């Protein structure tokens, strides 16, 4: 019976330090920040009154994408001042997901839990902070007991809503981004190792060497799929952040207006 020997998970996910406390994941995150900021800084220097060309066009496409598909869908017009925050989140997460398929890096920086965890803690602080700022002290009352709850059920509903909003939301944001990227990375590694092992097998040569084309096709398909998944996970992170901030801004709808 033949089996593929998969390397230990540490070899697939842990990288050596380039210099102390700075490894490949940190390098990808720093490059994502620099490239993301450079796009918008360079675009800001160009003239805003003529039709956009070149890098200004790219920047305007991204801003319009966030305004049309993220902010207007969830927060409406009053959410437009949150566009810079959501745009930064989206661009950073997308530029951290993309190196999973680029030949030299081949590791999505969001496949380790540190970056998604920090980003979702940041979003958590932001949405609780805006709730407290816009609704002052009554925010927790509106959060834990939506209007229309009968008094007898208030303790139970309070506990459920507390866990659902304050505990589960940041955890699910983290796990969704992290596990999607980790699963994609492990699948790509599996099919790459399998196709290499089959191409270079020394036993059962005719069957295995030629049959190795099948995991190779799967690897090509998965690489294309990872393009979609990287973009989609960044978009979903941004749109869920917009939804959470939107619910903090308005409460549950019928007290403020």
């Amino acid at each position, binding site marked *: 019976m033949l089996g593929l020997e998969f390397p230990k998970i540490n070899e697939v996910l842990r990288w050596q330090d380039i210099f102390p406390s700075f490894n490949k994941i940190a390098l990808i995150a720093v490059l994502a920040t620099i490239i993301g900021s450079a796009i918008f800084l360079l675009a800001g220097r160009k003239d805003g009154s003529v039709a956009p060309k070149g890098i200004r066009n790219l920047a305007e496409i991204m801003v319009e994408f966030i305004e049309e598909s993220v902010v207007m869908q969830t927060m409406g017009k009053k959410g437009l001042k949150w566009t810079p925050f959501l745009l930064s989140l989206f661009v950073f997460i997308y530029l951290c997901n993309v190196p999973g398929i680029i030949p030299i890096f081949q590791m999505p920086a969001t496949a380790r839990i540190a970056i998604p965890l920090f980003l979702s803690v940041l979003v958590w602080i932001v949405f609780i902070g805006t709730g407290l700022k816009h609704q002052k002290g009554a925010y927790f009352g509106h959060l834990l007991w939506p209007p229309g709850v009968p008094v007898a059920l208030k303790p139970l509903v309070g506990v459920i809503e507390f866990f659902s909003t304050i505990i589960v939301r940041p955890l699910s944001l983290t796990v969704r981004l992290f596990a*999607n990227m980790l699963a994609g990375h492990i699948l790509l590694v599996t099919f790459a190792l399998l196709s290499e092992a089959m191409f270079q097998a020394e036993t059962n040569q005719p069957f295995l060497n030629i049959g190795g084309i099948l995991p190779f096709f799967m690897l090509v398909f998965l690489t294309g799929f990872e393009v979609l998944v990287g973009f989609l996970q960044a978009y979903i992170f941004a749109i869920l952040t917009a939804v959470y901030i939107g619910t903090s801004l308005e409460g549950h709808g019928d007290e403020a207006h």
Partner: protein
Amino acid sequence: MEAFSRLVGTTPPQTPDDVKAAAAASSAGFAYGLAAIGPGIGIGYLVGKSVEAMARQPEAAGMVRTTMFLGIAFTEALALIGFVVFILIGL
């Protein structure tokens, strides 16, 4: 790569560590397999209903598509929490 020519050993587990590793390997597979049933049904139902909505009213297709992606993200998160349990137990 010699990886593929190595035979997979089939000795029964002897030491307590082996028993634990064998149990972990089998239960990790169960964990993810069971966790993937619910979200599979949920996402299939969700996408089916949104295709139906888009066919009924093609002008609303953009909004339906956006809400569909949002719903897929929520239900897929549950399957991925199962995947994280698989990673923690099995590897």
